[in-house]
């Protein structure tokens, strides 16, 4: 069997750098070939603060992935995140010339109107996602080609970020001689693998609580309605525990992973957790209720902020498929109950769909972004076959020149 095109997804996370090598079959199934991981250093809140260290970590993760997959990595699809990434919804329009029939030219025209969106000075568009078309103000047009009218309008969801900050993440990968095919926002990538069309249609929110940031994306009626990043993640829980329980940060991280729970039920008040003494740390007894309260209040607040943001665009009770949690922090016990109490809709954990390969990998919520990247790459490849990022760029320019 001939191999399909192999893609590599790379995420430089706050906790760890991971790279996924996978091939995407024609039927849309993703087959994992290898996963490379390396603990992350020099990354805070999803952005690089120590360039050299981060670059080394990327190198480690990629060589790990190469070794496991037996595939030489030349280029990667890179996930980006950070508090600077924002989104907004826009409507744009073109007047239809000629016979009043909408052709591919109008569709291209309307798609190339990204430049007209007013953005902050340092920002540039990362994704411009079509929501829906209107022909002469008529809603719900799925494919307008061939339909007659005098005015074509379209709603777009624009995700944009600060160019320099995204550039530094790209530079970090380029530095070790690996090309970056394209950058994809975390939440967009995660949604590729977690959601199917039916979920997108009925309405769903994906919340990816990572180490440094929380990415979210809202789908309703099959289209992206809202997306964003809140710079709160597992690191904050660790930091809260470190301050609240007066223990070193490394112990706090370990405690969070081993004992952490956000549940406030069945707390006897007297239950203690004993931390064994360690080098540089003489043991300590910790109240279970204190621990849970600290984690609970942080998650409760985070979900509260998300609820307010989602509520701005879609009433939450209209989200038929509820909330889907992923990311490393979704592994904390009791997180689902907290989310359910805040959102008052069913909350599920993500299951990467249509993935085959090492089972440990695709059940791990920490990898959903990386696997999603591969799927995204595959989707882009299907749309623009045999075109690299550079080629597509050149093509789009020549197309524009053609128009002039």
């Amino acid at each position, binding site marked *: 069997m001939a191999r399909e095109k192999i893609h590599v997804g790379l995420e430089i996370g706050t906790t760890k750098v991971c790279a996924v090598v996978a091939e995407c079959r024609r039927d849309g199934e993703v087959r994992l070939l290898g996963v490379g991981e390396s603990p992350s250093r020099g990354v*805070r*809140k999803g952005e690089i*603060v120590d360039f050299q260290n981060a670059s080394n970590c990327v190198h480690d993760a990629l060589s790990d992935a190469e070794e496991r997959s037996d595939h030489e990595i030349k280029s990667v699809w890179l996930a980006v995140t950070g*508090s600077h990434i924002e989104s907004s919804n826009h409507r744009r329009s073109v007047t239809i010339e000629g016979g009043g029939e909408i052709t591919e030219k109008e569709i291209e025209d309307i798609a190339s109107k990204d430049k007209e969106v007013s953005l902050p000075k340092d920002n540039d568009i990362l994704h411009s996602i079509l929501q829906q078309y209107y022909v002469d103000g008529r809603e719900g047009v799925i494919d307008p080609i061939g339909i007659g009218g005098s005015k074509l309008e379209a709603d777009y969801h624009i995700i944009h970020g600060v160019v320099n900050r995204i550039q530094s993440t790209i530079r970090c990968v380029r530095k070790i001689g690996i090309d970056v095919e394209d950058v994809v926002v975390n939440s967009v990538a995660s949604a590729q693998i977690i959601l199917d069309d039916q979920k997108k249609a009925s309405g769903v929110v994906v919340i990816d609580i990572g180490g440094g940031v929380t990415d979210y994306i809202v789908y309703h009626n099959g289209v992206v309605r809202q997306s964003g990043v*809140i*710079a*709160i993640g597992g*690191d*904050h829980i*660790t*930091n*809260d525990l*470190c*301050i*609240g329980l007066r223990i070193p*940060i490394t112990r706090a991280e370990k405690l969070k992973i081993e004992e952490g729970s956000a549940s406030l039920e069945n707390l006897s008040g007297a239950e203690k957790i004993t931390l064994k003494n360690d080098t540089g740390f003489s043991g300590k007894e910790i109240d279970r209720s204190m621990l849970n*309260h*600290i984690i609970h*209040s*942080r998650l*409760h*607040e985070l979900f509260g*902020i998300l609820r307010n943001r989602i509520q701005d665009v879609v009433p939450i009770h209209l989200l038929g498929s509820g909330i889907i949690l992923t990311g490393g922090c979704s592994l904390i016990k009791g997180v689902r109950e907290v989310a359910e109490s805040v959102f008052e809709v069913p909350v599920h954990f993500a299951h990467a769909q249509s993935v085959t390969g090492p089972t440990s990998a695709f059940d791990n919520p920490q990898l959903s972004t990386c696997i999603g990247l591969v799927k995204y790459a595959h989707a882009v490849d299907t749309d623009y076959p045999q075109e690299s990022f550079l080629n597509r760029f050149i093509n789009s320019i020549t197309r524009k020149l053609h128009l002039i």
Partner: protein
Amino acid sequence: MITYPRYLAGQSETQSLLIALGNAGINIMDRLIAQTAFPMESLAINTDQQSISNTLASNKISMGQMTTHGLGTGGDPEIGLDAVKESAGEIQRAIGGKNIVFICAGLGGGTGSGAAPLVAELAKQNGALVIAVVTSPFSFEGRRRAQQAATSLREITRFADAILHFENDRMAELIAPHAEVGETFSVCDKLLFRAISSLNRIVTSHGPIPVSLPDMLAVLRHSEDSCLFGCGEAAGEDRVHHVLETALRSPLLDRGRLLHDAGRLLVHISGPSSLSMEEVAEIMKEISKNLSPSAMLNLGVSVSQDHSSPLSVAIIGRCGGEKRATPTIKASTDLSYLTQSAPTPQPASKPQQTEAPFFEIPVATAVHPTEKPAAPKVQQPLLPLDPVTRGRFDKIEPTIVEGEDLDVPTFLRMKLKK
């Protein structure tokens, strides 16, 4: 659900005890004992040996001799708690046999904040009705003290049946911003004393319209809000007007204006056997004029057999109630009050301060309905001066959402807000 303590059903003899905790509590108690004929037994508890030896209280406990060596807690509630644990047996003996225990403490320091919850618990265990009368510190005393006070107050709520919570900030502001320090404190202390003695009277006295315990507890249960309090005493001719004037002029009612915000109000009238129904009706009429139409009013009347005892009125309420009428409605009702109250006859035999303040109130609020203080709580947000709380996010870009620095642990911010 509130359960009736058993002792109140059959027993007629009630024994009340006032416990003063810490320096602030003892100061208040000393002032009471020195200035008035004090009606109940008193017990002073402190960690500071010097303050204990100077107090006028009838019983004294110097607690935590082993923990603090009589040198105080240095403002640490944990030491206060250790001290009270050490002396728990002694305190329990002193409380024994009392059915009503008032706990008077200034929260924010070490002894008051640390010991009050446990003392309340001990009293509760003894089957007493526990009423805590506490003050919270001035905001300029720092965030730490405010936090300690808030924590302690929450703890006390678990054990006390009723809490009268006075905010020092508000008292000082309402009494007189420019008054001398000593004067301000003495007015504050006097208010606290009046509150304690009126509560004691409400609980112990019997009369034609008794205040049921659940009613009283319903007014006082919510400790998070600070309370409204006013009382007055008068005898002789025109006693109704005099008593109302002093009661409504009480600073914590802000000349009756704050009564608008009260969701629940308890009015207790006690007087000599000559107290007439007409007098009661008149008092109630004047008080209800200041009330918001949706407020819940509980009335209690008690009559003493003694002919010479004065007529006294106590108004206790809780501000920041859930029922708040919109300002426009208030303004219109106020206007109707204005026309009604204008022809009310003034007592002719009273040359000094003939302008009774409760007649002025509707005028003021009706003309400037928007200038009415909307929230009686004086809260000054504090700058986050504590550099350690950001922890590992110290040197990187803060996460600020809706004006809040989310890098500061949530549980810390939540506690500060409360």
